[in-house]
């Protein structure tokens, strides 16, 4: 890891200013993606801006039909929160499946969603529930947020402050974890909402996506059989030493069926 200037601003405005003034600035949340990539010298920022000193960026609030989760909230806090467990249990379960105990004690929801790793779990929950991503200057719908592999709608220096999750009627998350890292080889989040079924798939393709075929089938009839015969295009899938594109496409339907079964 190369040397850098370390900053710990006390407010969002100060953080933005530091970012703007830096030659190559980066925000630091839990550091469990950023620091490993700095050690590998995949990232070599001149300025690291630690968000931990900014008040109000962490915590979970139950606001009528929505759960608001602050950007700096650790995975373990979401996994063990009684509010999340009762209002959106699938989201608490998703958080409990991330990495391992030590990673869940440090990694944050804001870091995970900003980073948009193709194999990360949270993007499936954010897109599956149709959440809103709130930043220092605007609110972005999940459908417009995840744009490409490791790419999001966040602009340079834009700071994610919280995520608003509308409470679904019911939801389930099922993943096929990579046995070493626990990242999703394929993870499927299914939510039944007032405006229909949403199916979000992570791990399979360069970025999390919704399967409109599965959604249409499940809106017709919410059953495991409804997914029978739906095959996603392997041409759109990732392929690596852990799973070929064909295998990932196959896993999408298998995981989706398991998620539906949990909801019956």
């Amino acid at each position, binding site marked *: 890891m190369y040397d850098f200037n370390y900053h710990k601003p006390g407010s969002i405005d100060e953080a933005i200013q530091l970012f703007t003034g830096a030659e190559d600035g980066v925000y630091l949340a839990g550091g469990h993606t950023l620091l490993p990539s700095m050690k590998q010298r995949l990232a070599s920022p001149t300025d*690291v801006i630690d968000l931990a000193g900014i008040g109000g960026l962490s915590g979970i609030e139950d606001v009528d039909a929505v759960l608001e989760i602050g950007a700096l909230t650790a995975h373990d806090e979401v996994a063990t929160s009684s509010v999340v467990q009762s209002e959106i249990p699938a989201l608490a379960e998703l958080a409990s499946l991330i990495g*391992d105990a030590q990673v869940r004690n440090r990694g944050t929801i804001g870091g995970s969603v900003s980073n948009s790793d193709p194999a990360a779990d949270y993007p499936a929950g954010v897109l599956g529930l149709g959440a809103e991503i709130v930043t220092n200057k605007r609110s972005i719908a999940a459908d417009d947020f995840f744009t490409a592999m490791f790419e999001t709608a966040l602009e340079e220096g834009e700071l994610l402050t919280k995520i608003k999750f509308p409470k679904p009627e019911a939801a389930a998350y099922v993943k096929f974890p990579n046995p070493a890292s626990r990242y999703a080889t394929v993870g499927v989040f299914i939510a039944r909402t007032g405006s229909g079924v949403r199916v979000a798939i992570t791990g399979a393709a360069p970025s999390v996506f919704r399967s409109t075929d599965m959604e249409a089938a499940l809106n017709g009839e919410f059953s495991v059989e409804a997914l029978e015969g739906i095959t996603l295009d392997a041409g759109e899938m990732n392929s690596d030493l852990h799973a070929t594109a064909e295998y990932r496409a196959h896993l999408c339907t298998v995981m989706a069926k398991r998620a539906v079964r949990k909801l019956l």
Partner: protein
Amino acid sequence: MSISVQLNVNGKSVTLDCPSNTTLVDLLRERLELTGTHVGCDTTQCGACTVHLNGRAVKSCTILAAQCEGAEVTTIEGLGDTDNLHPMQEAFRECHGLQCGFCTPGMIMSAVDLVHREPAINEQVIREGLEGNICRCTGYHNIVLAVESAAKKMRN
């Protein structure tokens, strides 16, 4: 860039200057000579570097010393000593929960946090709770037995 960090390690207040890219494990091992905390992978995988940061198990190779300003850190040296072993250390000895011992400090720090926060300890909870700690020797069986046995003593 050089920074100044003040933190509390095993009950003692420490203030020192270090380069901003110093990790917590480097601060512990190289500056404070607390070499009980090990570095197995330096890539956040193995858990050999696990310590408690404000009471929770974390991988100290993936935390900057700068992020620990004002924090309470406990390492394996702060848990117990040769004459006065922590029940978890005693149980690892008794149940033969180690062979080469390289993973053991991290295993024990994770296991203590696990027992503190999980109301019901059983084999499955232990195996899942220690997923972030890799052991290349024991096959985990005696580690699970040690944690089960220590949990009973820690609860009494």
